[in-house]
């Protein structure tokens, strides 16, 4: 399947496109690269190179507030990812596998709203809900509840796409071969949508680890997450220590990209085998 054959351009068009392409990549990568470089600079001022040093990383590790925020982030991301993956997968199953049920039309709309609603609106409404209506104190729990409220929908989108590509007759075949509903789900449906579920989970994890806006609205006193804590630091003063923690966060993001790519590559190579 060669798709690219109809694209014979005149050479100059291709040249312009190529130059433009690499310039945009430079635009996307140079700022990050410079940020990483200055995290190793032995100078208090970011932007002035003062020789190589690990000291900012060292300082970061020995900053109890930062490490506390990191630990909080890990807890929130872990719990909200698990819950939103379960909720999102259930919703995807209900939407894709059941033709009609009470309130399905409304649910189909509600499910997608958290994806398109601006984060500030989401944060503001959760803040009002938690503090003015529900009798709860803002804490890590309210952050987790907020994160689930938006990331479950992303999981649903990813899993639903996977389900839509899954041949219905596989589940019918299992039923025909004496499997009951639960066994069919456990032995057939779940293993086959697993790449989608994992993709959704990674997305939920990334969203939770990246979130600043909603967390800032619904966090309790003294229990911040890493991005919000770093955000606060940047507002006060830019230091190379922020570059160090930024580099750490970038490394984490990058790791998640590669994990998700590995998942995709596996499911793609499987579907390629099928075509052959």
């Amino acid at each position, binding site marked *: 399947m060669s798709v690219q054959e109809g694209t014979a351009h005149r050479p100059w068009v291709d040249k312009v496109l190529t130059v433009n392409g690499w310039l945009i990549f430079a635009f996307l990568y140079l700022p990050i690269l410079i940020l990483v470089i200055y995290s190793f600079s032995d100078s208090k001022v970011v932007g002035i190179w003062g020789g190589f040093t690990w000291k900012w990383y060292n300082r970061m590790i020995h900053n109890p507030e930062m490490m506390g925020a990191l630990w909080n982030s890990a807890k929130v991301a872990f719990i909200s990812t698990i819950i939103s993956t379960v909720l999102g997968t259930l919703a995807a199953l209900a939407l894709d596998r059941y033709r009609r049920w009470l309130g399905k039309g409304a649910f189909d709309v509600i499910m997608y709203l958290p994806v398109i609603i601006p984060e500030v609106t989401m944060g503001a409404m959760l803040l009002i809900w938690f503090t003015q209506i529900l009798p709860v104190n803002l804490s890590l729990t309210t952050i987790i509840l907020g994160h689930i409220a938006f990331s479950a929908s992303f999981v649903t989108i990813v899993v639903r796409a996977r389900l839509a590509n899954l041949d219905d007759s*596989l589940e*019918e*075949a*299992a039923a*025909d071969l004496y499997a009951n509903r639960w066994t069919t789900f456990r*032995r057939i449906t779940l293993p086959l949508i697993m790449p989608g579920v994992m993709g959704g989970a990674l997305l939920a994890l990334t969203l939770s680890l990246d979130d600043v806006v909603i967390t800032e609205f619904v966090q309790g006193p003294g229990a911040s997450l890493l991005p919000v804590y770093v955000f606060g630091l940047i507002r006060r003063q830019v230091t190379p220590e922020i570059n160090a923690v930024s580099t750490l966060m970038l490394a984490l993001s990058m790791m998640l990209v590669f994990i998700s790519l590995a998942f995709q590559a596996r499911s793609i190579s499987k579907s390629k085998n099928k075509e*052959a």
Partner: protein
Amino acid sequence: MTAAVSIRGVTKRFGTDVTAVDNVTLDIVDGEFFSLLGPSGCGKTTMLRMIAGLEFPTEGSIQIFGEELALRPPNKRPVNTVFQSYALFPHMNVEKNVAFGLEMRKVDKAVIKEQVADAIEAVHLKGMEKRKPSQLSGGQQQRVALARALVNRPKVLLLDEPLGALDLKLRQAMQIELKDIQSEVGITFIYVTHDQEEALTMSNRIGVMNFGNLLQVGTPEEIYERPVNRFVADFIGETNFIDGTVADDGRIRIAGGALVYARGDAPAGADVTLTLRPEKIWIHSRGAADLDPERNQLPGKITRRLYYGESIYYEIELEDGTLVDARHENIPSLQRRDVGDEVTITFHRQAAEALVS
């Protein structure tokens, strides 16, 4: 003759306005190869799915060896299905796929192992046990699907266009193999297809469906030679339709005034349509002396000739303008005709079937 499957007054409606299967009554005999034949959307697959339990009928009774199970879920029925897309579990290898049904029925592990090995050998896939479905060819996947269903010793095997995805040569080979397997295991096969040739060559009996109705049930010969209506005649094989009226002496008066003999029991005065297969028409030169008086004779003119290799098609215009196709085998003893030749066509008195229009 015991009925393996007994279907009584089965109707399936989807929503309020789609009737996929309309009041079908049908008995399928134990051990027979029965085909449900019809164009796509005729309700044959829905009928099969209701026997499998993948759909529940709106109304009616489905019994398998006397047991009513119209509303029983698929996993509690003594039937198995070979799906159109094969529906092999992509994450399991051949062995696991074939063992699935037995495992679900909690058959003893050692027995499973033995029976799975036998089933895989029976479909000539020995040595492929550890392969994933994606590593098999279409024909091999088809065999796995067959083994996976047959290993459960179902009382009835349901096949939903199982050969549709295979190329012509492989399809023909698989037709023979399926037929052999069926006579070997002696299980009733219910086979859904839209390919009339496949149905004719493989089946003991055929049920022709259209628009949710079961139009005719019979042996391949009955269906081909004595179609009950215009749809069946048209759908199975090729045919000519000639409109006419039954005259007082029982012959049929066709447009142009000629009188011909045909089979059928339509009363005098009734409007009928004659169905006449192209291969039953002989072509003679006009005025030939040796014409059999026992055959119907009609004058005409060759207007088109199509060369098919093993046969030649002639289009003949009768005197009233009706066009008829005739097929001649391509053998040296039959005289070649050219466009424009004045000819007389003849056909046996039993060759044409008069259908009440």
